[in-house]
């Protein structure tokens, strides 16, 4: 089961991204509809479509069998989904007063949870399974790490986070909770 974490600045620019593969198996709720997909493309544009519709990961799943490690998932599509989920996140942000937006959106096979910091940073997590509590704790921990990073006076809300310490700690907490 894979998780994709994006830390988005207020201008929707990813400041930090993390792809985490947990050992938990992917819950397989596949529809017969997504089986037996054509595995050829008539043109490269159809390839775009294949990727965006989520078919490429689905076919990978069926043909590869076993535990999918997210290798067949297209990074670009993941990012598109994360970006598109901002619509729902912004909507929820405006209406609710919560920092942790649990399962705020669903797209293709992905569930999107988000965490909004008071500084308008958005932590977006794409995940497949249900793990509300773990995700919440993970978010809180990432937030703490982020706040520590922000204490750096040279760090603005738009600075890309390159700190290796931040990275290792986020990975550790992802391992712990996800």
């Amino acid at each position, binding site marked *: 089961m894979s998780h994709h974490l994006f830390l988005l600045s207020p201008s929707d620019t990813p400041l930090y991204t993390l792809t985490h593969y947990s050992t938990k198996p992917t819950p397989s709720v596949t529809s017969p509809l997504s089986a037996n997909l054509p595995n050829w*493309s008539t043109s*490269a544009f159809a390839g775009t479509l294949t990727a965006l*519709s989520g078919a490429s990961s689905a076919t990978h799943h069926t043909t590869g069998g076993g535990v999918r490690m997210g290798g067949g998932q297209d990074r670009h599509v993941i990012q598109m989904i994360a970006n598109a989920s901002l619509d729902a996140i912004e909507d929820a942000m405006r209406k609710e007063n919560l920092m942790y937006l649990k399962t705020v959106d669903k797209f293709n096979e992905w569930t999107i949870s988000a965490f909004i910091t008071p500084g308008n940073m958005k932590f977006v997590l794409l995940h497949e399974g249900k793990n509300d509590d773990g995700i919440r704790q993970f978010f809180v921990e990432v937030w703490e790490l982020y706040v520590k990073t922000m204490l750096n006076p040279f760090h603005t809300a738009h600075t890309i986070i390159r700190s290796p310490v931040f990275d290792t700690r986020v990975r550790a907490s992802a391992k712990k909770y996800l």
Partner: protein
Amino acid sequence: MDTHAFASLAHVRILLMPVGVISQSKFENYASEIRTFESIRLGDIPADQKDERARFMPNPLSTGHLQLSFPTHPPPRSHLPLSLLRPSHFPLAVIGVAACTQTDSLSSIYAQFNASLLDIFPSEGIYPLAKNCFVFEESDDTNLNLSDNLPGLVVLPNMMGNKKLYIGTLLADLCSQIIGEFGVVIQALESPMGNEYLNSSSMPVIPPLSEIPSPLNGMKDSLPPLPSHHSQTDMNKSGFALSAAPNIKRTSSGPGFRSSNLNTPLARKRLSSIGVTSSHARLFKVLGDLFLLSGRPDDAMVWYSEALLLFKTSQDFAWHGAALEGAATVLIIEAWSAGHGLQHSATSMREPWTDVSEKLTQATALYYRSPTTDGEPNYSLLAYLYSSCVLRHSSLLFAVWSAKGWGPLAFTTMLQPGPTPYLPPTLSRDEGNDWAVLERLSSISGISRSSIASVLAQLHGPWLLHLGPRERVAILEAMSSLYSCLGYRRKEAYILREVLGCILDLIVCGREEDGLSRMSSVPGTAGLGFQNLNSSNLGGNYSGVGVRLSDSTDGNESILNLLKYVCKVLGINLDAVRLVDVNQDQLLHNSPAPVFYDDSEEDNYELYGWPELQVGVVREAVAVAEALPDFPAVAQFALSALKTLKPALSTGDQHHLYSTSSRALAIARRRGDAKSVEYWSGRPIISITVAPLPLVRLPIEKPISALKPRMSDITPILTGATDPFLYNPRKTAAAQGKILAVQNEILEFVVLLKNPYIFDLELESISLSTSGVSFDTKSLRVFIPANSIHEVVLSGKPLEIGTLIIRGCFVQAPGGASREFTLPLSTNEEQERRAKSRSILACEIGRFKYSGFEFLPWEKYSRGKLKQPVQSKSTIIPPRFLECKVVPEQPLLRIRRTSVTHGAVMLYDGEMSTLRITLENVSALPIDFLRLAFDDSTIAPAQQALAEGDLSVFDTYETEHGLIHRPVFSWNKDEARQILPGQKLTLSVTCVGKVGCTNGTIHFSYSHVHRHQLTLDAPPQLFHTRQLSYPVVVTVYHMLECYGMNILPFPSHPSDDTKAFDASGKDGGDLHLGDETNWCLFSIEVRNTYGLPFEVSFDRAQEGTLPLTITRTVPPGSMSRIVIPLKKFILSEEQLSQPIPTLSDRQFVVQKSKLSDSEANIQRELFWYREELFKHVRSRWRESGGIRSGNLSLRQQRMTSPMLDTIRMTKSRIDMSLVSYSNSSTEDTPITYRSGKYYPRTDEFVYLRIKVTNLSPSSWIFTVDLAMEPLEHVVHEGVLIDLTVGELKSGQSREVEIALCFLACGRFEIFAEAKAFQPLRLDRKAGVGKLVAIVQGINT
């Protein structure tokens, strides 16, 4: 295109089909006329059939409506398996629309109609159930043979008044036919055979109705086949039909079915008895569908609930779902008919749509789970059913949401979506419906947008790939429209990308299948290993763009607009570089609007959006535009991306985009495309400066008054570096004066260009943009190396006199349009403006007040939250530009030859030599003004020393004297003459060796002053000169040094020691010394530090003496002392009272040293006597055995007070003599006098006679003091102090006598000192005298 209206299950589809020759606009015209009938009242439908066809016929008094929809496209043949599962998906009737002109005949139209029907509809299908052809008469004079009376062909005459009414009637007739046919169809299905067909597979296909009975009958009853339209059995009698003759016409139960809700329990019982093999669930469902179509929702509901009961136990997911959908539709139809035209007053506990929504949710789940394991290739159909079900569900929620709740408006939207199905009337068309508006809808309707979106999101999944391309596009379109209306723009963009992918796939594949470029990778031959592209290589390697046979560009614009929209949502402005029309380019060129372009926005680039996504989408956009192909758009996209996304682009991407754009532009140009891109790469120009003219050509502006002879002749050389004012605004203003350029001569500009990209930027042309006088310039083609700042030189010729304004540059990228970049001077206002805008931007940077879309720059500006740094009109200051003053043509001079070899002159100190310089006029203008000015390396230090003002007055004078009277170079002004074009002139310049001079420059200033006046205007107050410089390297050997100047008193005892005098000079005898006391000796030491012997001559030229020259040869390395007698002199008081003059006219020279008056007097005296001395003594040198000679300067020598005392002639002269009076006689007898000494006797009275002569030019009162040594041996009369002499006029003398008696033998010395008085003045040492007496005894 299909519209996914919610109530599409209840729509009777009637296909509108063009027949014969009919233009599209006409067809659309007629079609829209027909389409005005969205529904037909059941009461209007003629129900005259009496047989089984009457089963679905409406009651004449029923109030329901038949919903109609008029597609113009039939569903694809692949959807045929849906024909029973979803009858509403198919056109139940066909209306041919034909336009009839004079030449057409009805029969041919009819034949065409039938032929195209056969084309469209497969023979194995059961639809259409009815058909009609409407022939619209185009003009009155058609000669249609109306008597033909073809069935299914109606002519609508042109003259017909109420055409609409007629069409309505016709449609009602057609509907009547359809409803009648429903009865026929259901009758076939009710037969056991039909039911078997129905249950044969999950998507059964029923053969043409004509074929059903025959196997049925042949198998069971072996009855002869009957004509199809007679072979139906009635449902009520189906029990009999199995046994009894099927051709018994059922007439009795027809009317009974008008109110079928009475009969349904019966029917169910009957039917259940038939089903031996299969359940009747599907049959009931079909019944429900048909009743729904016939506008009888009550009946439909009954049958649906029957069917649902049965489906619950079966595993027939697809049919179960379809039944649920139908039931849901029924609910809405009922609600519509109940509330149609009435005010909605639902006060139920639950939201009224919950029921519908639940049904649809259930149906969705059923479709989702429906197995496809039976090997049937029905994935696409199932996916289609699933998608349309989800879409139905979302459109239900959407309709309720957008209609502000459950009410008539919502029902109408669901039933008859109208021409803009996805734009509800509550929302406006322009994008960016405010969040508040959307949320208001949510709060009114009680449906949150996110719930609609989450329902809609179920639609999206891999199964979309199963769909046929047309359905896929339609569904994705619907989806994106819904997202758009919900305000979910990012999701919309996501879907739109898929839409684009679909469309482009179709375009590309369609192109490949045109027969010329068929690729082996066309679907169907998948075994050949066509790679499964995923989007990781998006855009990079789209291959196989086929040949385009038809050059239709319809729709390209829309695709590009979609692309732009998608990119804009992701924060890329693809319109950042605008497209311009090449043909209008010239116009633009002529009327350039001032573009004030701030580079500040480039400096403060702020990331927004998702860079990785942006890059991917841009690459895709470029690929899409390339595939269309629309080359200007390709270039536009690529360049816009380069311009706006530069920080996010990798080097590879930059290269790719740049090469793509340049290729596309080249192709566009080759194809003669009228569009091109404007200049894109930010602001390429950093600065423009005028390349300084070579000094030879530089004109120098002078006022014409400079030509007039000057009154005060202050040598400008002394005023050189100093300016008495610390701050002189005139001077700075003059320094900033306009740059001068010469008419018809090349003027060069240095332009700094920058290229921030990592590829070499090519500029097809760069040229200067000027205004003012006409300027002849050429454009230049430039390559700017990657990531660097590049300097180019643009040159041109000003053609007129006046002011030339350089506004900036025209820059044109290859294939693009040219653009002007202005470059205002960085004046204070300009700096201020820039600083202001920069600080406004800087203020915004790093903020996170606005997030998401509001952060995008265009949003920020459009909202007006961020004020554009624009000044109001009134305060705007027009920027100033670089200006050049173009002056008239100037002559040009050059040095033809000089007498100086290698430009170097070697001189001894003080030597004088002459340089000859030949000038040539190489221009076409005469030169009538020529001046020479000189500069050498001694001038600057001297000037600086003067400027510092630390020198004493004396030193100042010396320095100034050196500058003015001993210049290194000088010339004779009279040599300057007019030089005609092509003529030469030779000038000689005198050069004097001056120690310390290492180099010098000769400046020739020349001009053509006296020009022809072309007009009668006042002559200009200015003229211009040019300067030609000739540098000379000067080497001066310092070979003779003078020092130790001294002035000694003339020895007073020459007779004692005449030999010494002889030794000092052989001419000693010729000295013609008069009175010794009037003379002194001038001595100086001359040392030869050079390697050659020199002859040194000192000349004496003194008034009242004979000229005297003393010459010595000074050998190398040795020193000679030269002594020359000088007559003492005295300077008048007036002369001495003058201060030490300053040669320059410097003011404000404050005496630094605080000297007392007496000290100042002494200094003045020293100065003036020294000056006088140097007038009298001149020195020269000559090379021994050579011809070189020169002056030896004595000005290094200082004069001291003792020297002054020596050289100065005293005021008075004192002559003393000893006389004796012999025994009171008045006759005196002189005492023996020998060689300066007197020999008086002891103890004898002698008289000392003191004669005082006033030598000064004025009259003084003198006294004399006497001193004697040894005094104790002298007896004298009276006092020795202050012996009064009295006033003496100039030249007058007077004697004073005093009696003495020497008391001892020996040598006595008597000194006399005169003191001179004037009122208030006293000179203590006005003269001295000395007398030596050797006193002898009387006896000796």
